[in-house]
């Protein structure tokens, strides 16, 4: 199997699993208790919190564990909206956010908030001028993703943070794809809130965190016990937290070598696809891009068909076609960068890991080439295209 869907989820690293295991049946104590067993859990949790804080240049008390990226995004938006509603009801985000942000924004719109959705250019980058122009006296929050999950484009986060700070507006970033893949410092980038998820960085599923800068007024998301400074009640998921901590520790340790390797393989495969397959192009910015992301549009064919054929060859990938989204509309991200519907339907996303190899890239290039041709041969759009070429 060639697994190239690491933006969907990653393999939990063996060292992460090893770190977690004792916290299921050996150190299973509730971290809120006073006896020694519970103290072990508390100690492990504090250690994980410190590791995560260090990775961002943050303080441990600014890290709040959640069940993952979607919860963190929901919390950041809903609780900020509630806490700052007296100041204003305007929020700025982008058209290419994850649905955890977009659908939460729709929810808030129905409750009287006004949302500005910033456009992006062909590469998926927002315009800082458009952002500045969108800020109003009643703007309470700017939420812009650190890097896009589909096309891999990395937004100008430090510049956005600077603008937010100048205008006294809170800045949240959904860093689910970027955290522990690219260096992030919350102070240097003026980030007030940041969402992250464990399973995108070789950690376990069902655990993530929200960074909340000290001083940000934000309401409790889950009411109950005093866990997470009373802001997110519920007995802590200690094995998950330990796993997340171990995954972060590992990710920070290998970031340089992993990034170098992934970029080399990424650009190699991009080059092969671009050079060897006609009527296709790379989506997303060429260099302001996650090290492991490749996203192509192949004209005249549809993505789901491509995915099934790749799966039959043991290659796991993803697409922005409607058929893979369960609706009739293709990816909102690909439409936002200006692709036509049929161009978005024919998209393919390949996301690498540190385990990816050049041999795998070569196999994938060969298979994609064959599959694209096979599907084009049965496509009426390709037939029409060839006829129009002949007539010219």
């Amino acid at each position, binding site marked *: 199997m060639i697994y190239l869907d690491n933006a969907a989820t990653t393999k939990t690293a063996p060292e992460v699993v090893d770190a977690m295991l004792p916290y299921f049946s050996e150190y299973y104590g509730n971290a809120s208790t006073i006896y020694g067993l519970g103290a072990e859990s508390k100690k492990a949790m504090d250690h994980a919190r410190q590791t995560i804080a260090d990775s961002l240049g943050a303080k441990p008390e600014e890290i709040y564990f959640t069940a993952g990226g979607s919860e963190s995004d929901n919390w950041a938006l809903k609780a900020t909206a509630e806490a700052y509603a007296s100041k204003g009801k305007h929020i700025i985000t982008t058209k290419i956010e994850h649905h955890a942000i977009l659908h939460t924004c729709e*929810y808030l719109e129905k409750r009287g908030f006004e949302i500005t959705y910033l456009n992006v250019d062909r590469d998926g980058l927002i315009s800082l001028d458009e952002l500045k122009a969108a800020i109003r006296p009643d703007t309470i929050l700017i939420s812009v993703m650190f890097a896009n999950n589909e096309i891999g484009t990395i937004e100008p986060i430090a510049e956005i943070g600077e603008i937010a700070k100048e205008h006294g507006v809170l800045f949240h970033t959904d860093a689910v794809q970027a955290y522990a893949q690219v260096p992030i410092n919350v102070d240097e980038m003026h980030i007030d809130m940041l969402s992250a998820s464990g399973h995108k960085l070789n950690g376990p599923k069902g655990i993530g965190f929200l960074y909340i800068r000290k001083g940000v007024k934000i309401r409790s998301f889950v009411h109950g016990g005093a866990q997470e400074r009373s802001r997110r009640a519920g007995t802590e998921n200690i094995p998950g937290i330990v796993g997340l901590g171990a995954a972060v520790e590992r990710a920070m340790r290998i970031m340089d070598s992993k990034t170098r390797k992934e970029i080399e393989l990424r650009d190699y495969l991009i080059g092969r696809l671009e050079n060897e397959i006609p009527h296709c192009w790379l989506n997303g910015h060429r260099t302001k891009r996650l090290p492991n992301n490749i996203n192509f549009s192949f004209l005249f064919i549809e993505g789901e068909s491509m995915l099934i054929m790749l799966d039959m060859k043991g290659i796991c990938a993803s697409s922005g076609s409607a058929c893979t989204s369960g609706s009739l509309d293709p990816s909102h991200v690909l439409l936002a960068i200006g692709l036509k519907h049929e161009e978005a*339907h024919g998209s393919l996303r390949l996301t690498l890991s540190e385990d990816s190899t050049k041999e795998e890239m070569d196999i994938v290039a060969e298979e994609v080439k064959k599959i694209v041709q096979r599907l084009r041969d049965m496509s009426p759009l390709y037939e029409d295209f060839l006829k129009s070429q002949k007539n010219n």
Partner: protein
Amino acid sequence: MYSEKVMDHFQNPRNVGEIEDASGVGTVGNAKCGDIMRMFLDIDENGIIREAKFKTFGCGAAVATSSMATELVKGKTIQEALQVTNKAVMEALDGLPPVKVHCSLLAEEAIHAALWDYAEKNHITIEGLQKPKNDISEGEEEEDY
């Protein structure tokens, strides 16, 4: 998520291609929704469909339903071909996931479109054949939450 029959017709689609100077050609769907089917029929002087071929831009289900539809109309009379409904195509494929039902509607519509083209070319009326829509889109309702 697909039945074995669907996977078989997707992996080994029957009757892919074009028929030159076909008796009837119909194209339905649109690229916006991600499905386009073009069906070619060769109909003899007795009104029997001698040959059916297709070209499809679309997902696995779109390819499989096109393939099955061509199989089902081959050798049939025009009237019999009109009985090849989306339900018949789905049943022949051992079912489709709910989100893919529109693909089978598209296949039915492609047969009708090709027959309509045949009728127009030959200035005849086919009993029971309505002018086909050239687009199928279910009014899928947005979930509210």
